[in-house]
């Protein structure tokens, strides 16, 4: 268990700790197995190129899961993800870094719960945000 982040320590504009991913082709196959998405563009290079892609691409739902990990790693056991979603706006390749990032956009307390809104996204080495999304989490307060 890493240390717990508390609501009082979080401010608008804060960036949360980044999560760096780099998918092997094996990870894509493992994801296909776990998710049931066996579309060949994720592991069959010839198939991917025949559909007009440059090569293999990472499953969107896997990046969605990476962003969920980013959030859960940050909020710790004391926090809860209340709402989270992202859209798939760009492609990532296996063997290339996928940087998962998040920035706090709003903090507020309602009905005794401490809410934090965030923008989250995955980022390619060229800076393109391939899976932008938003999330709302609740964090424990000190004391």
């Amino acid at each position: 268990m890493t240390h717990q982040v508390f609501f009082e320590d979080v401010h608008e504009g804060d960036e949360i700790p980044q999560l760096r991913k780099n998918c092997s082709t094996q990870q894509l196959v493992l994801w296909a197995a776990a998710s049931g998405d066996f579309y060949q563009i994720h592991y069959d290079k010839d198939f991917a190129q025949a559909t007009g892609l440059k090569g293999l691409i990472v499953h969107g739902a896997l990046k969605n899961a990476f962003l969920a990990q980013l959030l859960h790693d940050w909020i710790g056991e004391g926090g809860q993800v209340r709402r989270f979603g992202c859209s798939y706006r760009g492609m990532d390749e296996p063997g290339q870094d996928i940087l998962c990032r998040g920035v706090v956009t709003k903090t507020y307390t309602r009905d005794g719960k401490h809410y934090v809104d965030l923008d989250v996204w995955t980022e390619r080495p060229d800076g393109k945000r391939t899976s932008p999304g938003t999330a709302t989490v609740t964090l424990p307060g000190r004391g």
Partner: protein
Amino acid sequence: MAQQAYFEDVEVGQQLPPIKITPDKQQLVKFAAGSGDFNPLHFDEKFPMLKPMGLTENIVHGRFKYAQVGRAVFAFAGYKGRVKRFGVSYRGMDLLNREITVGGVVTAKREENGEHLVDLDVWTEDAEGKKTTPGTAVVALPKRGS
């Protein structure tokens, strides 16, 4: 479902109906998913282990071929027969997108403890005729009218 084979009708030297399969990458990935064998040898053509083996194409899981031979053996046994023993060994590699033929032949018939047993040689064969997954099976078959 094929017709039920009965002990009386089986002859030594009889061949099992051949099954031809050409596994593609999706089939191997699904087999990896089903079996839990995620060795990249079976789906990543750039996997570093392939080159020293002199290969440019992924190799088919041995157990995938075992399963294909199993289809032939269980089809031969039918609903009323029982597979008593079945095993293969992995003696050669088969490559992705190449045709594999599953075959088998009856080598003996015998009665043992009241059971009517049929011994089989079974295998997968590559396009050059090399038997890459040879094995044996023992199947108990029903007798007519029993």
